[in-house]
């Protein structure tokens, strides 16, 4: 069985094409990624739930900055407003409605079997990293296939007269999915009402 596993890994590794050289990691990107990972670790290991919620707000802000760095301003706006704003507020309200015990220790002890399972998943994901195209590489399939991104970029203004391609894809090209999503948001509100036995939002 191990022989079969080694064979599979070897075949996967050898058939992947060599990736072209792309620009190396910049300092700001590395520091943003490090900040995000460190705040996630602090969220996981904080003993007090309130501390975990506040560090989670900082993590969301770091993610919004990271999305801005990867040229995704719509997503960064949404992440900052919703994750760093609304989710943090809802978590704090839940803490106000339930309980929060004061602890003496700042960090909790690591649960080793769970860490082992997570580490196993991490190792498995790392094995696949060699095959994903490098970040920013222009011959990723999303770019090399002209029917995917290039079509949307050229046809957006021609068909919809709107410059924001994300909004055009959301409202025009994939409008039905957006309708489903809006209804899901509404259904989430109704579900929260049902869970708490209320008929009004107030």
């Amino acid at each position, binding site marked *: 069985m191990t022989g079969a596993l080694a064979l599979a890994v070897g075949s996967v590794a050898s058939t992947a094409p060599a990736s072209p050289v792309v620009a190396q990691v910049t300092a700001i990107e590395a520091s943003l990624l490090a900040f995000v990972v460190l705040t996630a670790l602090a969220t996981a290991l904080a003993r007090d739930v309130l501390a975990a919620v506040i560090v989670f707000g900082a993590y969301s802000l770091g993610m919004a900055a990271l999305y801005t760095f990867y040229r995704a301003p719509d997503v960064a706006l*949404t992440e900052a407003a919703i994750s760093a704003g609304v989710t943090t507020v809802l978590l704090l309200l839940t803490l106000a409605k339930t309980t*929060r015990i004061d602890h003496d220790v700042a960090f909790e002890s690591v649960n080793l079997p769970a860490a082992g399972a997570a580490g196993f998943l991490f190792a498995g994901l790392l094995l696949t990293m060699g095959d994903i195209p490098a970040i920013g590489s222009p011959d990723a399939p999303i770019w090399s296939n002209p029917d995917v991104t290039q079509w949307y970029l050229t046809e957006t203004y021609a068909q919809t007269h*709107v410059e*924001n391609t*994300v*909004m055009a894809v959301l409202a025009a090209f994939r409008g039905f999915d957006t309708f489903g999503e809006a209804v899901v948001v509404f259904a989430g509100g109704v579900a929260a009402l049902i869970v708490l036995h209320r008929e009004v*939002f*107030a």
Partner: protein
Amino acid sequence: MTDAADDTDMTDTATDSEADASTGEGAAERDDAEPDLPPHRAVPRSGRLDSEERQGTPYTESQVIMPTVKVVAPFAFTYGLFITFHGSGSPGGGFQGGAIMAAVVFMIAFAFGIESTRDWLANTVVVALAVGGALAFAGIGLVPVALGGAFLQYDLLPIPVLDPVKYGMEAVEVVGIAPIVSGVLMGLFFLLARGFNSDGDGFGNGSLDEDGSIDEQQRDEESIDVPDATDDAAVADGGHADDAGRAGDGAVDTETASSGGDRR
């Protein structure tokens, strides 16, 4: 700070909460009916949100938060509107704008009190935003179907002068998505702030304290009793003592669970 005059029970409907908002001015008759109103309910409900007579006991004594929110809130709300309306030419759109507008309401609620904001922004407004947005989106999508096309086929929309595709998309974003997102997020905020069993029966005391802090005083008193006495919590001793040895909160919670069971 329990809502003794709270009548938003399970039988409440939207019309009742309208009556709620309108009888806010006539607090005199409520005083006769419910003599033990909390102080912030005993003052008449007219005038500006931050005036002394409307605030009663201030929700937060911070002289920094209230003026800051007074100054920042209009600009933030206008920015949210700008992001919604200009979503076709710059990053933005309905989701972002709706979330920012909801966040402005959260900010106002933090500065001036959740109860005051709840009275100012009646439930009807929140529900109307959410439901109206969903209906508008569905309506704009179904008009082309009625005219013989596909769902959300914008070029069949009967808009007289303007470009139907672009303005159909704008309408969907501004009139459909932004109200849904802002309405639902505001509603969720007020819903979670009210909690469950808001007449004070819940373990979390039903609401935030006067100065806005989490009411952990009650928990700390009980956390002193260590769980050796909690064999009435109907858990066998062996495993439970281990639980308590690891962290005191498990014991506290089962202590309150047993007392809560009596209350039920």
